[in-house]
């Protein structure tokens, strides 16, 4: 059984990667934060009594389920949004201040002094963007296998597919990423 400290250490070790993983999937920081929080709550409430060794796989499965739930809810919400927006006029756009958007962009811009750090940030963003572009299953397999250090069997269980499929997804993802980054002259 994982103690409070062990559970805490585990969550510390995975929270950032889980956030990035969720961002790759949903492409929205706030939604990704909600997803990670939900996954943490579910793990803590239902599986806190499990051995520490089982937590990574359990957390991955929960995270994947929460991401899929997010897409299901979004699908329903989009349906209603389309229905409701067709009933509304476009007058709302007139009330928007374009300077607000500019202001927000300014706030989020990170002012770095070192040129190298800026360049490295750009490379990391490019890598993030290429990972985001991967098909969902390839991305899931790649992230779990190579970033979360899960073996093929664990990744297959978390993804609910065969080990052969995991290997195929990983191989395709790696080749696609290598080709995309090479085309942009980026070396990770």
């Amino acid at each position: 059984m994982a103690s409070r400290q062990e559970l805490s250490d585990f969550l510390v070790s995975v929270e950032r990667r889980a956030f990035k993983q969720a961002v790759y999937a949903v492409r929205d920081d706030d939604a990704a934060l909600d997803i990670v929080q939900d996954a943490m709550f579910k793990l803590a409430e239902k599986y806190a009594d499990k051995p520490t060794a089982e937590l990574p796989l359990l957390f991955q499965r929960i995270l994947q389920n929460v991401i899929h739930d997010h897409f299901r809810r979004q699908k329903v919400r989009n349906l209603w949004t389309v229905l409701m927006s067709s009933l509304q006029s476009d007058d709302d756009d007139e009330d928007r201040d374009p300077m607000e958007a500019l202001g927000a962009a300014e706030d989020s811009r990170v002012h770095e002094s070192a040129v190298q750090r800026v360049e490295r940030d750009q490379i990391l963003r490019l890598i993030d963007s290429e990972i985001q572009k991967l098909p969902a299953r390839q991305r899931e397999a790649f992230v779990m296998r190579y970033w979360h250090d899960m073996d093929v069997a664990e990744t297959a269980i978390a993804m609910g597919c065969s080990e052969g499929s995991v290997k195929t997804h990983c191989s395709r993802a790696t080749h696609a990423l290598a080709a995309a980054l090479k085309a942009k002259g980026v070396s990770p």
Partner: protein
Amino acid sequence: MNEQMFASQLRRALDESAERLPLRVTQRLESARLAALERAHAPAVRRRMVLGFFSAGGWMNDRPSVGFRLLSTLLPLVLVAVALYGIVAWDDASKIIETAEIDAALFLEDDAIPISAYADKGFGVYIRNVRQ
């Protein structure tokens, strides 16, 4: 460069990227983690006893339990079945009453058919043909 080497280079880049998350994000992750740890050691059993039937374990942000989902599926079906049975029963009863009223009206009319007419075979055939 083989697949493993490339993957490990990417892994380093991803780790680096995760380390550079904005403060807003890391703070939110930290508060989510602390809240999760609180939940891990909260008296979950009592909560489940109260909400057990309606949620699969936890507060309202959890998915509904199997019992609740079963109930929410079966209850409308049972209500529809009861309503249909009621409509059919009511329709049968009203038809019987209607027929009885017609029969009673036939017997109570001033120029009612004499009782002996019903003993006539030809009259019986006539009545059947008229009803058809």
